[in-house]
């Protein structure tokens, strides 16, 4: 009998949400675990060192010197390295700090935040130094595939894992999320030089959200059209617009810019730029893969 592939789960800078999503597989996780030898997973077992592994699912982004060292070490000890979750794939939520210099972030977090009294910026030899810009894993070491999502849905995570165990890369759809959303369009179906709505809204500003109509047609910025399909439109099913956690599609290289290309042709650009935080919305998950600041 051939030995079971060794699977390691490790976290860089993230929120552990992805690892929790894995545990959320519940009974199905047992099926998966039967097929592998789990060598590390901080939500399930207590192992400090990073062991050798055939497959590593890596959560979180590269945000500190410590992460850089860890990711290099993991790369050396791993057969297939797969970033799991949007932090690892694109920089994710923590990547939004790339809008600001590190000093500004530290000042804001430790000195200027409203709840701070007598704050000080922590320093010490045991605190990992932040690198100037958050990086997705593939900007530091090569990877063999991606399982995006913040966190990836359990179904998607399970499918990705099973693919890996069969020696394949996790599936990535080439389409945008609208293919899984299935909401209707009324105005966008024909040429019109005007915008489709007069102004834009946050979902909570609508008196009633039409659960069958595309959010854009209700004036709500939705990122689904610039986002890779794969989550089965989870947020849309909860009657909320997509925030783009699955990242850009195969042939788009910048999610925010691609979104702007489309959005500016649909919703009133002037009101969007005044009322909404376009950069924040467009790059909630992908800023650090987009701005390759040196």
């Amino acid at each position: 009998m051939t030995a079971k592939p060794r699977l390691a789960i490790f976290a860089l800078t993230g929120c552990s949400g992805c690892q929790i999503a894995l545990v959320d597989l519940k009974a199905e996780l047992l099926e998966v675990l039967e097929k592998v030898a789990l060598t590390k997973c901080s939500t399930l077992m207590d192992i400090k060192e990073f062991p050798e592994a055939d497959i590593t699912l890596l959560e979180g982004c590269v945000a500190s010197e410590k992460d850089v060292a860890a990711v290099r070490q993991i790369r050396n000890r791993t057969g297939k390295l797969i970033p799991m979750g949007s932090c690892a794939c694109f920089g994710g939520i923590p990547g939004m700090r790339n809008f600001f210099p590190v000093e500004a972030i530290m000042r804001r977090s430790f000195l200027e935040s409203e709840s701070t009294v007598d704050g000080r910026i922590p320093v010490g030899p045991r605190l990992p130094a932040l690198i100037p810009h958050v990086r997705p894993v593939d900007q530091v070491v090569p990877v063999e595939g991606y399982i995006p999502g913040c966190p990836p849905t359990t179904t998607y995570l399970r499918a990705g894992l099973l693919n890996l165990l069969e020696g394949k890369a996790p599936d990535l759809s080439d389409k945008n999320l609208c293919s899984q959303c299935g909401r209707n369009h009324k105005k966008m179906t024909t040429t019109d030089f005007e915008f489709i709505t007069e102004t834009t809204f946050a979902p909570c500003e609508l008196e009633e959200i039409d659960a069958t109509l595309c959010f854009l047609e209700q004036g709500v910025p939705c990122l689904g059209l610039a986002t890779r399909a794969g989550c089965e439109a989870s947020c849309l099913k909860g009657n909320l617009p997509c925030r783009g956690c699955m990242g850009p599609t195969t042939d788009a290289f910048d999610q925010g810019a691609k979104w702007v290309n489309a959005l500016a042709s649909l919703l009133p650009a002037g009101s969007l730029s005044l009322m909404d935080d376009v950069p924040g919305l467009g790059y909630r998950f992908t800023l650090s893969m987009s701005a390759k600041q040196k």
Partner: protein
Amino acid sequence: MKKVGLFFCQAPCIEGPKFDLQYLADSYQDSAATVHVFHEMLSRSSIDTMVRLISTHKLDAVVLAGCSPEFIKSTIGGEALLEELMSSGVNPNMIFHANLREQCLLAHPKATEEVLFRKARALTDVALASASIYKPCEVIDEPPHRKVLVVGAGEAALLAAYHLVRNNLRVNIVHPFDDWRYASEYRSDMNLSRTKLEGSHLFNFRTATEVIDVAGWAGDYEVTLTREGESAKERYGAIIAAVGKDYPVFQHLWSLLQIDFNADGAPQARNQHTLATRSAVNGISIVLPSNAALSTDDQFRDQSLQAGSAAMDIMTLLYAPWMRHNVAVSRVASNECGLCRTCTKVCAFNACSIDERLKTSIVDIRRCKSCGNCVVACPAGARDLITNPTGHISKAIEIFQRARKPEETNIMAFLCAGCAYRAADAAGMDGHPYPAGLYPLKVVCGGRVDMQHILQAFETGFDGVLLGCCREGHCHNLVGHLYLDRRVVLIRNILESRGINPERLRILDISPHEGELFAKAAGEFTEEIQRMTKGEGR
């Protein structure tokens, strides 16, 4: 691997003490391309040599490094060259240009040889890169419909029709008025021509009729006409627009036919000297309004000469046994289309629709004008333009970025083919120099400028980005400029959020002949960026 011919033209205007074209050509000796330097590209012997090289080396693509592609397209000699290249087997979408004359050597007369060489080499590299990224386009050969639509109510419309009918072409004149509108002095002569026309079974005339839509291509246009609220589609091989400024839907008709405008909003011929009644679009000829300062006699003479010339254009075209049409359209990768319907909303020509059965957006090749607006708008990146592919724009930015010297002020300029690119040509031709740190890239339309590429340019180190496009209301593609403006509003927010001064991105509205304005704007923009970047470091 495609085989490429790299043909340099050493036309007298390029030769000069400062620039050694042979040296540039020699720098490509190690490349896979078949390199040849011609003394004068548009001469008979050069064309013969090119045709021979194409057949002996079995070339798939040709790069013409010399004068501007717009110059080549709009001159009789250039048109002949392109026709010969195509008939010797090069696909129309595989002919590329490095504009060394207008946009490099003539534009920077004071630049050092090092600067000129670097820029000329970059422009040539960009054209060469096309050969590996572009794909051949489909060509359709069809016999043309021998029927002409003439729009207009004046003497020119009538005379053009008269010539065409006498040459056995079927003609339909339409206009939105109740009656003819020619100057009364010539009424008897005009009435006579009209009587003759009306006696012919080839002629048809409809008043109170308007053109509301045009689809198709030279030899096979589908025109929608309305009369008293009823509309009907008809097929024509060609169209002559002979309408004055008093025409009620002048602007609209001009847009439908994709006619160019000059800075004053007057329509423009393809070449005002030699192709004075041809528009930029094959199969559409125009009779321009006469100069109002002329006497009535001279105006009449001008109109009748133009009518004759327009009729001649069309006859030459429609009497060919078959016509070739290049299917240059946007393409959809159906495995990537998620049916978001952005394209169906933004295409100004109603060329996009959703195939519910195949679950993909599809393109009507008879309507698509290859403007690229949907390609930019498609948030999935599922669309691309055969004549101006996304991959090549990215590649060009990369090549220019490597060519630039970081210590200089560098501007990445996206110039729309219809207006700004030609304005840059005019700057070179008319002796209005501008800084060599401006790297020009032709894009089919302002609506083709993808915000991803603007970010790419800034992120790879360009100091400024110039978006050159038409003047308001002159967009060939109706909405290219409009959507560019809308996108730029949002991309400025994004630049600002990244600490890039949004003033480093500029839109320049310009008409094709405004060379002086182009040079002035490029110079001022460069200076302003220098001031900005000095102040804030980036």
